[in-house]
């Protein structure tokens, strides 16, 4: 069964590769490629957060911290000029995972709202450290100055086409890994922790262990997204680790759908396009985004891909009423302390 899963995952990864590789020959505009790269990176970030929110039921409001830690670690290593790109990437992801292990061990001592606050507060602590440790991080200017990108395995990241293929490739492989994780027994255990932590405890499984593991895995993939962004812009900025980054990721998840694996990617696409067109016309981006969020909360409350999948299932079953997937709109009593 596991082998079949593995082969179906690789099949999807290959299909995704073909689509993404074909895109530049259809659309030649550099702006479109830029947008695709941004969507891919934010999509990976949002999906990694959804491993916590949608799959494990841990509402983290501090995940941008690991996005930033990946970006800064990678940027700092590259600026020394002594690291090759793959080695620096691996080191950045490893160090972010280690950071996540420490933060995760602290945060999973608490539950629900307390967990959300604690992640948020630790993120803001990280953010203010970036701002105040000017000698290392460049303070509010960010880690600018750029870095050399040595050629490895025939990939020259000074070439814009190579950059596109490399970033899209890393994102697709990461998404394949994440997809595999959510479909594995471990992924089902995470869902069980979300739905009924007490039952997991009674079954003799270690709830906190699963929570910490999910936290570290999600952080590692978030840091991959951060590394890619740092690679793409040849810099790292403090706002990578600001709370609005986490907020936007959560909105991407909600907008695209919390119950579907690719939902956050759809949300990332919607939000990136919105961002692109709104910032071209007005500097009051927050006003527009905030209004859309309020309308979403009052009227819709469901992600786009969730709606599509529900309709599709209902259609397949020949029902008139849309099928219910996982109930996420639980009554407040069951979620609050």
């Amino acid at each position, binding site marked *: 069964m596991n082998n079949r899963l593995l082969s179906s995952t690789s099949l999807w990864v290959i299909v995704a590769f073909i689509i993404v590789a074909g895109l530049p020959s259809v659309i030649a505009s550099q702006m479109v490629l830029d947008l695709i790269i941004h969507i891919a990176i934010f999509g990976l970030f949002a999906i990694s957060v959804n491993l916590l929110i949608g799959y494990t039921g841990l509402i983290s409001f501090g995940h941008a911290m690991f996005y930033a830690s990946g970006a800064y670690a990678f940027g700092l290593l590259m600026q020394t000029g002594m690291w090759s790109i793959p080695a620096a990437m691996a080191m950045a992801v490893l160090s972010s995972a280690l950071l996540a292990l420490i933060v995760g061990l602290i945060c999973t*001592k608490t539950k629900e709202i307390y967990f*959300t*606050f604690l992640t*948020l507060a630790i993120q803001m602590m990280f953010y203010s450290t970036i701002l*105040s440790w000017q000698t290392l991080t460049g303070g509010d200017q960010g880690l600018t100055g750029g870095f050399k990108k040595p050629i490895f395995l025939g990939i020259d990241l000074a070439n814009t086409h190579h950059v596109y293929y490399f970033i899209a490739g890393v994102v697709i492989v990461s998404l394949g890994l994440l997809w595999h994780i959510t479909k594995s027994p471990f992924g089902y255990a995470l869902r069980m922790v979300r739905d009924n932590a007490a039952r997991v405890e009674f079954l003799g499984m270690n709830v906190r262990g699963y929570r910490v593991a999910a936290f570290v895995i999600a952080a590692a993939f978030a840091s991959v997204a951060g590394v890619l962004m740092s690679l793409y812009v040849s810099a790292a900025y403090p706002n990578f680790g600001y709370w609005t980054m986490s907020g936007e990721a959560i909105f991407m998840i909600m907008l695209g759908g919390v119950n579907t694996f690719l939902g956050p990617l759809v949300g990332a696409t919607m939000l990136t396009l919105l961002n692109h067109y709104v910032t071209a016309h007005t500097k009051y981006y*927050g006003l527009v*985004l*905030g209004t859309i969020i*309020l309308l979403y909360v009052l009227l819709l409350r469901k992600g786009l891909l969730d709606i599509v999948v529900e309709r599709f299932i209902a259609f397949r079953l020949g029902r008139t009423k849309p099928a219910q997937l996982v109930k996420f709109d639980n009554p407040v009593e069951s979620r609050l302390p």
Partner: protein
Amino acid sequence: MMTQGLNAFVIGMLLFLVASGLTLIFGVLKVVNFTHGSLYMMGAYLAYYIYGITDSYVLAVIIASAGIAVFGVFLERIFFRRLYQSNFLMQLLMCYGWILVLDDLVQLMFGAEFQSMGMPSFFATAPLMIAGAPIPLFYIFLIGISFLVALAVWMLIVKTSFGSKVRAAATNTSMTGALGINTSLLYAGVFALGAGLAGLAGALAAPVRSLVPGMGFSILIESFIVTVIGGMGSIGGALVAAILIGVCRSFGSVGFPMFTEIGVFALMAVVLVLRPDGLFGKGAQR
């Protein structure tokens, strides 16, 4: 030393005013009001605006608190009310939307630059000398009025019938409703009170802080830390924790200027790890 101690009190009392509103709303309505910092910001800007027109600080404080209280009722009736049955993530998202909207609205009306209200003329006197340290008169006024408000809120919750209804609703909402108490009116009242406290804190802070769009978020994080350290829903805990944070900030900014922020967060992390429900939190509730 004296100056630092007084500074600690001023920071702590302002923080308490914001945090008490937050913890009150959480205690009764069980919603985490992430827009609370924005209400504080709006209180500060409203006071700044009224003071600019009327030149009366008293009027500015009164109108700012009342105006934000009314705005709080609007928020509760139109938005929060629909989400009481919904999960926490949806409430979080809605508040995130409001923070973005309010920050940009303030920027639209007052500009993105720092604004300064200036000291009201009555307080613009030479600082008093207490124990050899210069203490501005306004600081003494701030501490005094914050204590009065803290006392008033405490009396309201503990001694009045409104307070006992609030406490009843905080313990068991459906039972309170079954006993014939109008819970939706009660909820609006609590939200108005909480929002009014945030507006009051904003108006009181306006002469000593510079105003900028987004100023609400840092006070929001801090008042969260206060409510979390004190125990969510506990007003007494909020008072203790606010003063604790004030001390941590005031003395930290002298001792370790670079790590002031970190000291505050570290304090919270330690308290949460040792006592996940906060210093005065009720562990029995879960």
